[in-house]
């Protein structure tokens, strides 16, 4: 059967959209790669009931195509729908440092996911490092899971801009204050202008080197901290593979939409972190707006709320950038691309041979050619060649098996 609306991604954005659309009488399919709905934020938590929605879980979408009636969405089965809403969220943004490929180094979101979604304690003694307000809830979640959080290290020195942005949204200010209070009670130091610049250990993390950073993130004044696990996060990168395949316009790292979540491609909507990282509340508002754009006029209240949350996200973005001084954390032996094990030395050599852009560098030294297709090293590799990180077009959004491909052919020919 063909649906009126197919939603890819069952996080806050996709869940909201599917629920609202079903209420409005649309035939809706909600597709997610994972075994549970909820995305990165809700995870195992209580979720809205999805009456009238066909929920398809464990379905990793690797390609979307235009067809006569709309779109074909290919996962282990193919779904067809007149309208496509992409709500695929984001993944952690990370930057390399010596030892970052040791087991025991986790992404900040990953550490959060292990507690909230998997109900495990990711480590006994941990350091949380990176940039952005997300480090605070991560540290508090870890504390509540019984982890001894030794330090929280914020590489930036978030300035008055951030305070001003917070002052305009009292709920956010109260939330931030709550986290700060919780950390203070547990006597966890929160240090700005600091970072984990190396991890040490044989088979797993045994400690980290912490450095003070100049405003440009050059390290000085090093010391070591014993810990068995590290959580690092430098923001999030939107997962734009599917919109890229369809030719949707992007700006920077995210999909461009109008105020009703319409992308530049007719029939393709996008909501949540794919349209720019702004957090779960914003994803919910955008999920609802996407449906309103199909069935009538969006309520002005929703449009205003979206604008307010987007302004806040913009202030965050400007307050917590990734600054280039991290290059000084690396040694020639530091692995930059975890999949293909490409070191900084190999990248420098390729650059000496004339690879001055990420594409040429990729061909010569192979960073970003492995399993993750540059999701983990893309930012670093771009910056190492002096380019702005840009999303890469991937013919397959996800690695697929030959069996999937042949199955797909068979369906096509049927």
């Amino acid at each position, binding site marked *: 059967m063909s649906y009126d609306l197919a939603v890819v991604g069952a996080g806050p954005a996709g869940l909201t959209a599917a629920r609202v659309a079903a209420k409005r009488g649309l035939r809706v399919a909600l597709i997610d*790669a994972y075994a549970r709905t909820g995305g990165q934020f809700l995870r195992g938590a209580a979720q809205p009931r999805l009456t009238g929605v066909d929920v398809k879980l464990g379905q990793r979408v690797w390609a979307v195509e235009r067809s006569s009636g709309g779109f074909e969405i290919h996962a282990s089965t193919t779904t067809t729908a007149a309208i496509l809403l992409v709500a695929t969220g984001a993944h952690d943004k990370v930057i390399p440092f010596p030892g970052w490929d040791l087991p*025991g180094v986790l992404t900040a979101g990953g550490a959060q996911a*292990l507690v909230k979604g998997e109900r495990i304690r990711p480590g006994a003694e941990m350091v949380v490092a990176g940039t952005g307000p997300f480090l605070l809830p991560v540290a508090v979640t870890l504390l509540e899971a019984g982890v001894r959080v030794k330090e929280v290290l914020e590489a930036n020195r978030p300035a008055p801009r951030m305070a001003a942005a917070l002052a305009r949204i009292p709920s956010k200010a109260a939330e931030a204050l709550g986290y700060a209070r919780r950390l203070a009670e547990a006597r966890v130091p929160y240090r700005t202008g600091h970072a984990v610049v190396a991890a040490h250990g044989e088979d*797993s993390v045994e400690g980290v080197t912490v450095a003070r950073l100049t405003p440009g993130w050059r390290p000085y004044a090093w010391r070591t901290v014993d810990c068995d696990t590290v959580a690092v996060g430098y923001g999030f990168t939107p997962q734009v593979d599917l919109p890229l395949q369809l030719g949707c316009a992007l700006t920077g790292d995210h999909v461009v939409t109008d105020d009703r979540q319409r992308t530049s491609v007719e029939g393709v909507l996008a909501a949540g972190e794919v349209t720019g990282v702004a957090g779960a509340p914003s994803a919910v508002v955008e999920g609802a707006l996407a449906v309103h754009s199909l069935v009538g006029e969006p309520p002005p209240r929703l449009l205003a709320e979206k604008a307010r949350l987007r302004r806040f996200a913009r202030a965050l973005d400007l307050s917590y950038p990734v600054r280039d001084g991290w290059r000084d954390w690396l040694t020639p032996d530091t692995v930059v691309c975890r999949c293909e094990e490409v070191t900084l030395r190999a990248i420098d050599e390729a650059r000496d041979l004339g690879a001055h852009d990420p594409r040429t560098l990729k061909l010569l030294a192979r960073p970003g050619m492995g399993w993750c297709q540059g999701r983990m090293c893309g930012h670093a590799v771009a910056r190492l060649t002096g380019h702005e990180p840009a999303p890469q077009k991937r013919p397959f959004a996800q690695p697929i098996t030959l069996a999937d491909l042949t199955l797909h052919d068979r369906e096509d020919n049927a």
Partner: protein
Amino acid sequence: MIEFRFEGRAIAAEEGQSIGAALHAAGIRSWRTTRFGGRPRGLFCAIGACFDCLLTVNGAPDQRACQTVARAGDEVGP
């Protein structure tokens, strides 16, 4: 609780937990080594984006441990 086997060793997992999380919680932090440097790899992103956590589940290679829900009796290895 359910139980699966990693290289013959019994590992306990909660219902619905991923193989990766169960191994990590059991103190097994690495379950494969890299092709060139022989470096240990386990969980990193925990959401299916980094592919560090690949392992073999019931004979099927290259499964993401963090995205594969553990089932009773699974045989898991590098």
